[in-house]
């Protein structure tokens, strides 16, 4: 207790030592603990104990101090407390693209679980750029986050993540694992997702199936670090198992944006031997592919069938509704948060890789190749089939 109060006073002294530069803007209306103590007629130490809920204070004194603190609009200094307690009650999250519904949904669940444990989330967006990621991780470490979630942008540049781990800050990876970094991770089985996405198209009789992906063509990282590569691998496996030569079956968009997928699909579908079916590796790719088909006047599924990996809220509502291999985005985010919280409580627990199941949702975007167009040339408004989950 003695040490504690000393540090606390020391911190306050740092704050208000005359001549030290204080805020660049006036916070004149923020009361200090000393003002609260003076107004309540107690010592600063007593006021501190009363508001902090530690040590012994008579209950009428505690009530009086609390009342004065309210009146004076005193707000505890979370920074000073953090220096004392060593906990900031802040978790960092470094994600690839917050506008992608997958990450939005995962982050929302991550924040919800963190919030229940009274932790706030500091969020950074990398746009899949390794330099941005390094800077974000550095910023979070400087802010002494209690732990951080990272969606690693590059499997090759991971020294900064090694440093997080060796510095003792709990780290969890979402969506991707890294060779050479044994750390808590929450992922899906991407190879399986790729295989599952091809299955309904193969069953419908398609032989010319192309995959549209934002994964780089020659990423040495391998499928563990790059979910796109895992999905490509599974997709190729499924094609080979069906006896299809898959030499040119994968089309790479230049990046993860909808417009990039749209351009790449446009090339593909207006090429010499267009595919009769498409598999897309995330919801942005799916939207880009649909936009390309629309621009060419092609209709899904009559002219081209489509299976997406990743569900999004608009997919069941399109005509036709889109058949997908759905990732449990919210559960992934929630699990990531609970793994971080667990590691805070049990720093020495062995790292775990948690693989959550994907789900095939059959909707209406798959038909046999060359399926007859409706005779009147317009789309039929059939009531949609209810979502049928199949494991």
């Amino acid at each position, binding site marked *: 207790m003695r040490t504690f109060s000393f540090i606390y006073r020391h911190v306050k002294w740092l704050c208000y030592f005359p001549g030290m530069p204080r805020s660049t803007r*006036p916070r004149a209306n923020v009361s200090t603990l000393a003002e609260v103590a003076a107004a309540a007629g107690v010592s600063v130490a007593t006021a501190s104990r009363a508001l902090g809920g530690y040590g012994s204070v008579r209950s009428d004194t505690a009530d009086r101090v609390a009342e004065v603190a309210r009146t004076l609009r005193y707000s505890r200094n979370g920074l000073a407390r*953090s*220096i004392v307690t060593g906990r900031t009650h802040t978790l960092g999250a470094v994600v690839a693209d917050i506008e992608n519904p997958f990450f939005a949904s995962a982050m929302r669940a991550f924040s919800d679980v963190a919030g229940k444990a009274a932790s706030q989330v500091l969020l950074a967006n990398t746009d899949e750029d390794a330099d941005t990621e390094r800077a974000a991780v550095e910023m979070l470490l400087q802010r002494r986050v209690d732990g951080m979630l990272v969606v690693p942008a590059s499997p090759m540049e991971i020294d900064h993540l090694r440093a997080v781990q060796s510095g*003792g800050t709990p780290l969890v990876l979402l969506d991707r694992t890294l060779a050479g970094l044994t750390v808590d991770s929450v992922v899906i089985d991407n190879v399986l997702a790729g295989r599952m996405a091809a299955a309904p198209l193969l069953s419908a009789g398609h032989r010319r199936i192309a995959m549209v992906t934002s994964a780089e063509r020659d990423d040495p990282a391998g499928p563990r670090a790059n979910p796109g590569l895992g999905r490509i691998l599974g997709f190729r496996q499924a094609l080979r198992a069906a006896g299809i030569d898959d030499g040119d079956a994968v089309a790479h968009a230049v990046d993860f944006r909808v417009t990039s997928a749209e351009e790449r699909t446009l090339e593909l579908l207006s090429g010499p031997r267009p595919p009769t079916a498409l598999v897309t590796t995330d919801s942005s790719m799916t939207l880009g592919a649909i936009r390309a088909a629309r621009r060419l006047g092609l209709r899904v599924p009559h002219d081209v069938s489509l299976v997406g990996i990743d569900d999004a809220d608009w997919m069941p509502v399109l005509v036709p509704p889109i058949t997908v291999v759905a990732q449990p985005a919210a559960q992934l985010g929630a699990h990531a948060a609970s793994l971080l919280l667990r590691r805070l409580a049990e720093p020495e627990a062995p790292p775990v890789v948690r693989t959550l199941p994907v789900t095939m949702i059959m909707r209406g975007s798959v038909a046999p190749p060359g399926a007859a167009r409706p005779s009147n040339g317009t789309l039929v408004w059939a009531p949609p089939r209810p979502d049928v989950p199949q494991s």
Partner: protein
Amino acid sequence: MRRIAGGRATPTLPDVAQAAGVSTATAARALGGYGSVREETRLRVQAAAADLGYRANSLARSLITGSTNTVGVVLADIENSFFARALRGIADTAHTEGFEVVLVNSDEDLDNERSAVRVLTEKRVDGLVVCPADARDTSHLRGVVNAGIPLVLLDRRVPRLAADVVGIDNHAAAQEATAHLLAAGHKRVGLLTGGNPLLSEALHAPGLIGVERIAATTVGTRAAGYRDALKSAGLPLDPALISAEGFHREEAAMATRRMLDLPDPPTAILALDSVLALGVLQALRDRGLSCPDDVSLVGFDDAEWAVVASPPLTVVAQPVYEIGAEAFRLLLRRMQGGNHRPVRKVLPASLVVRESVGAPPDSPH
């Protein structure tokens, strides 16, 4: 060294000083870039810091400088593409200016928002961008303003709160969207506000009089735009066609089904955000109804899927990214000490006409 979780140790400034063979004060000056230190000493201290993996503690620095270079952002629903895009606008602009963003999702819940604002204030963020969730109580926002902490409201206004606000002209946008439906011949236009049921009373006031006074939400001003478009066309207002039944897609679908079951159902619907519009499309499909042959639809926010919806959706497009970016720029001026009167920044919205509006069907379906 301070022992921390994991049994590993974080090197402290005294550790660096000891390794470099200088006093702690000298090490602090060398690493902080202030005061006078010999160049050779500075290099030695930096080398020692790098060897030990020493990292400046920005919390401690913040206590001294009073600035955390962090802004807090409290948004209603991060899964709604409007907020995700606005957040990107805020975060990109903030990073350019050397600020970080702390995000809290309020889920349109007043208690969540209150606790988020309290915690962010305790963490001494330099400023706050808030999209207020609820009209009933804004005392926590007044507390922020009274404490002299810069605050910018995104998208939604709170009357008599001395805070900057950025958004579109919601009244004009809703009026134009409604007028577009009326021009196609519709006389019964449903309005999905996405507001919670607590707003129902205000939204069911006779003739929607005074509806623009609903605070902390765009619902009121947009409903007023809807009202004035109908009034200009000499059409009556029907409370049964105005919904405040929640902001989730399922809730919007239920509200749509309720309206379709009315003895005199709407022939057109105005949905005040993209998630609500999805709910309308879903309900129409569940009923085997066609848009726009049976029911016309105008949405708010030009989501990326709007162009591939069936039919492609006519929407009020807001410059969402720019709204977020402008929110941060307004906040920055305040954080740099601006004591000017509260600014209300209005960015232009536009009606993007696609294919979801047609003439009303000849006979009731």
